């Protein structure tokens, strides 16, 4: 989670630029404010708290600090993922896969975005599919997550030619074409951070 916070902070201005192009220029600031708060909230927890609970707490914190569209969306995603992981001390690839699927479902329930609408869904979806495929192919979790990160990056890049159909960017109509979606980009940061975290645990 700290890793997410760090990379969000690094990328804050980049996310904001992306949002300025097709949105209202606050995505980076929103995400940064949110994950700052998450960092503080988790700092208050002792080591014994299971990952699922931490994710749920992170989700609640995002909902109550980010605002905008990404707050409820990412907040719901983390809460659903946390709930899916439950109280287990540990989680394996399949647990993680289930958790991410639950997260995506939550996002779609709330935001009703279809693949190709130029949203975070276009990065999350491919990442999850790649993770599942890699795990089915017997890849170890860290390699599988590397594949997921790549897929997320591709997915985010693939939003460039798309015309937005959801969120603020949709107001631009065809003018939204040619810009990468900020939310999809923060999805990449989150998946990549997850990968690095798992790598560290080794």
């Amino acid at each position, binding site marked *: 989670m700290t890793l997410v916070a760090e990379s969000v902070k690094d990328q804050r201005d980049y996310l*904001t630029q992306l949002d*300025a192009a097709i*949105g*209202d*220029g*606050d995505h980076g*600031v*929103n995400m940064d*404010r949110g994950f700052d708060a998450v960092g503080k909230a988790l700092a208050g927890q002792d080591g014994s708290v299971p990952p699922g609970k931490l994710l749920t707490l992170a989700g609640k914190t995002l*909902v*109550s*600090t*980010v*605002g*905008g*569209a*990404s*707050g*409820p*969306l990412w907040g719901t995603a983390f809460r659903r993922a946390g709930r899916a992981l439950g109280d287990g001390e540990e989680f394996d690839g399949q647990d993680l896969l289930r958790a991410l699927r639950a997260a995506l479902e939550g996002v779609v329930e*709330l*935001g009703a975005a279809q693949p190709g609408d130029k949203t975070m869904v276009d990065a999350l979806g491919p990442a999850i599919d790649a993770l599942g495929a890699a795990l089915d192919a017997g890849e170890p979790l860290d390699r599988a997550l590397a594949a997921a990160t790549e897929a997320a990056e591709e997915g985010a890049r693939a939003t460039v030619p798309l*015309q937005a*159909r*959801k*969120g*603020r960017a*949709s*107001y*631009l*109509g065809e*003018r939204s074409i040619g810009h990468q979606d900020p939310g999809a980009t923060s999805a990449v940061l989150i998946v990549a951070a997850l990968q690095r975290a798992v790598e560290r645990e080794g």
Partner: protein
Amino acid sequence: MATVATPMKKLLNDPAEVVKESLAGLAAAHGGLVRYDAEAQILVRANPAADKVGLISGGGSGHEPMHGGFVGPGMLDAACPGEVFTSPVPEQMLAATKAVDSGKGVVHIVKNYTGDVMNFKLAAEDALDEGIDVESVLIDDDVAVQDSLYTAGRRGVGATVLAEKIAGAAAERGDDLGTVAGIARLVNEKARSYGVALSSCIPPAAGSPIFDLPDGEMEVGIGIHGEPGRERRPLGSAGEIAELMIEAVVSDLAPADGAAVLPFVNGMGGTPQLELYLLYGEIERRLRNRGLRPERRLVGSYITSLEMAGASLTLLELDDELTALWDAPVDTPALRWGA
């Protein structure tokens, strides 16, 4: 004097604290009307109204006087200000809803933006869990956005101000929850808006303009978040812009022949009154030429995009009841008459 490493051309201290500090200043300036609850991040009436339907709204900051400037007798009971151009969070709406509920339920005026809709939705669910009746009214009057499967739907802009004033008067006279919400929805149905920007604006946290607009050009079909509009065009004369706005709203609203209307000519923040009134003159004349009857009017910068230069036209088709509710006394920092 030390410089601040913060946005150019802005009066502020820490960009991260702009909203909180500004709310404190608003409450200090209008202590008789509004109180700032810093913990809950909401503005409530200084003298809460007992025993009436509650009316709250909220949204990103940077649109002042909307919404905080509309808290007071005859209009809102509370406002939930988010960060600049960012929807507030559910906790704020929940706190405001609880603060203003007198048992008769609370109406949420929600501008149609993905973020506002989602955050208000989560808040309404929480309020329901606490046993408070909530009616959410979605405002989506911006004809620049094609309402279709291909967008998030029309944005809520100028009609928000009119709905808050008119529904506020209905709540004040004692209408019940369904009626107040129904009147707010009627205003939304009978109003259409269209906006034009002559410059961008500078969100304090970003510190630089969201887009830049060369001299002699304008963005048409803009919203209220400093975002670019549907299209960029050569700057038109005030008369041409008036015609553009009127054509956009009238063709979509299709008011009855000779209908009584309320034209609301709104400044985006950086356009001087000198120009705003000039534009109003162009608009009123053209409305009359189309056989419409401006019977009430509002001209000023009431729903803004920080210092953006530009203006929007909101046209509301009036009936006797809407007119009477518009005329009812209102006593807020930004709108006041009969009080």
